[in-house]
């Protein structure tokens, strides 16, 4: 890739001296990962020392770890020393008008029903509309501030709210939790921070215009959301629009903390570039997402619609520590062509009378492989734990695969665990029935898939759900007939 060569060139031929001070103009960290890289990133971001030490500890952990290989996915080894770990947000030389944008991309935007102005932003076209979104942003900020909600970038939070960050960062996902989480902790560039104060209901879904911002999120994203006692927040991450990125490896960490009587609803639509029809290219999406229901009667709900990425490795989990706490996981994962997804959840019952609910819908088409991997663990003192798991797989065509790996570890006899699993196929008969009523294969498939995923889609906030439905249809275009 030309730009990458350029970057390497710039970095290697430049006068750059691995500086540790903050007044560096360099836009990129040198290729490769060592302690100096970490210091560079931290310095670049003007971080306090405790943050740097935290990163260094993570790096130390990471060096001692091996990349996990237990997932049901195959991909060429990532060379972690050939990646540039820091690139300052820069203004890209984008297309000047929509005429210069890939028509296929515009076509997809239109199918998703994304307004033209947003299309321009997503495609990187320079627009005046930025003014508009700034004003929207301002209105949002005012409203949130009134409620006492803190919503900012994690970098800003490190500067402005260090006491909260110190207390909660890595409280759920320790720096040495797993290979990718350790890597993220060492090198993360930015992400979001949310704090909802006691007894506060966040006055809006944290979403909408953030779709635009999401287009600029980095490779190693870090998100921390804290709902204080009695608080409620619904957070939306991601974007239905197809996301192209030159970075192949994405390793995000998301941590959620729900205190007593608090509720966090976290919804994701993931549509990273899945690679082409021959399986070339595409993003590796190795994400660690975990929440803790720390206080009694708290609730965390993960909802995800995963259609993108070449390889997905993702298990949004809930630690049910507080008594009577509830953890939920609703997932639709679509794989087409040569995509591979190994995704699921972990529900760890620790407190008494805890409940978890897992609804996973896997849709495989083309030559893709789609695995559900889920752990339900009931600890010794978790009396009266309840879990209900439902894992349904839908196959389109006969060259794809669907796999289910449910793990169950129960150390308390009072637990009540239910697991149901089904596998079905979009058969000729079903398509013919729809054809006979006037629907073509594509419309019929979209309808069947949406029906199959209904229980999960219903959990998404309204406007997201509408887009997600269209997205499912688009992701499976050309998979039948």
């Amino acid at each position: 890739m030309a730009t990458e060569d350029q970057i390497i060139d710039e970095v290697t031929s430049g006068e750059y001296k691995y500086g540790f001070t903050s007044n560096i103009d360099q836009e990129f960290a040198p290729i490769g990962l060592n302690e100096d890289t970490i210091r560079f990133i931290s310095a670049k971001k003007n971080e306090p020392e405790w943050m740097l030490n935290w990163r260094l500890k993570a790096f130390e952990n990471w060096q001692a770890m091996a990349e996990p290989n237990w997932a049901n996915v195959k991909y060429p080894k990532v060379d972690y020393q050939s990646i540039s770990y820091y690139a300052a947000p820069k203004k890209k030389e984008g297309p000047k008008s929509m005429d210069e944008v890939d028509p296929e991309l515009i076509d997809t935007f239109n199918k998703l029903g994304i307004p033209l102005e947003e299309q321009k932003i997503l495609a990187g076209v320079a627009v005046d509309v930025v003014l508009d979104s700034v004003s929207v942003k301002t209105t949002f900020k005012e409203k949130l501030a009134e409620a006492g909600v803190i919503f900012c970038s994690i970098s800003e939070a490190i500067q402005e709210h260090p006491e909260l960050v110190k207390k909660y960062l890595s409280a759920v996902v320790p720096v040495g939790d797993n290979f990718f989480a350790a890597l993220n902790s060492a090198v993360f560039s930015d992400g979001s921070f949310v704090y909802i104060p006691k007894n506060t209901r966040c006055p809006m879904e944290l979403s909408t215009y953030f779709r635009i911002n999401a287009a600029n999120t980095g490779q190693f994203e870090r998100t921390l959301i804290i709902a204080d006692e009695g608080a409620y927040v619904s957070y939306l991450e991601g974007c239905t629009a197809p996301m192209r990125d030159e970075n192949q490896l994405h390793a995000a960490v998301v941590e959620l903390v729900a205190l007593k009587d608090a509720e966090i609803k976290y919804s994701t639509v993931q549509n990273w570039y899945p690679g082409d029809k021959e399986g070339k290219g595409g993003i590796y999406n190795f994400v660690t997402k975990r929440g803790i229901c720390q206080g009694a009667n708290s609730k965390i709900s993960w909802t995800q619609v995963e259609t993108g990425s070449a390889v997905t490795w993702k298990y949004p989990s809930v630690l049910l520590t507080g008594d009577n706490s509830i953890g939920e996981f609703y997932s639709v994962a679509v794989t087409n062509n040569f995509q591979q997804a190994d995704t699921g959840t972990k529900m760890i019952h620790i407190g008494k009378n805890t409940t978890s609910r897992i609804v996973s819908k896997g849709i495989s088409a083309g030559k893709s492989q789609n695995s559900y991997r889920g752990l339900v663990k009931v600890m010794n003192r978790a009396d009266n734990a309840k879990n209900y798991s439902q894992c349904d797989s839908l196959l389109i065509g006969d060259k794809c695969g669907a796999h289910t790996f449910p793990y169950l570890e129960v150390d308390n006899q009072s637990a009540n665990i239910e697991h149901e699993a089904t596998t079905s196929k979009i058969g000729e008969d079903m398509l013919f029935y729809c054809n006979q009523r006037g629907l073509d294969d594509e419309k019929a498939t979209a309808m069947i898939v949406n029906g199959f995923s209904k229980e999960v889609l219903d959990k998404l906030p309204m406007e997201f759900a509408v887009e997600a439905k269209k997205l499912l249809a688009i992701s499976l275009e050309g998979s039948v007939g």
Partner: protein
Amino acid sequence: MLSIKNLHASVNGNEILRGVNLEIKPGEVHAIMGPNGSGKSTLASVLAGKDDYEITEGSVTFDSKDLLEFDPEERSREGVFLAFQYPVEIPGVSNTNFMKACLSEQRKHRGLDDLKPHEFLKLIREKAALVELDPKFLHRSVNEGFSGGEKKRNEIFQMAMLEPKLAILDETDSGLDIDALKIVANGVNKLKSPENAFVVITHYQRLLNYIVPDYVHVLYKGQIVKTGDKSLALELEEKGYDWIKDELVNA
């Protein structure tokens, strides 16, 4: 309206239809009877365009268009409806949404805009009442958890919604008790008009007491071997098919 000439069709090299000839005019009701394995359901599937069958000879003209050239969805939009012998279930898709999507495609084909939500709602209620379908079925997933009789009634409901020119009922009466049978027949009779036509495939004369055919055809070994009026159905009910087979042998 429909003209079938010397239609031959095979599946996996076995010839099932061996020269079917049939002419259907608007306003007519044709019953097709015949022993098991004579090709009745194959004929229905071939007309609807199921691609398991290979047409080896003959032609089918519908409204002076070559029906065999069309994909199944195009045939549907042209006005051919098949009430399935075994309707499939579509989990998670409500009957209402299903019909909305189908009707939209049909209307698009005819150059019409989608109905407005209140118009659609009115239509769907009217048609449900016509086949005495409990409105609660409209919100349920297509055929999921429906009894055999409910599925059949749902087929007639869909037919009422889409108002086809030619409706083919493939053993819609099988598995129905007498009350359900009457409701289904009643629905068909209410939908009958001088512009549309029905092909009723059945094993039993019973249905034809309620849907009175203009013609009764006997399909045997992939050919229509005898055609009569409704009295032929009664005769078949009484005497079975052997006498027809004998006639053929002696002819």
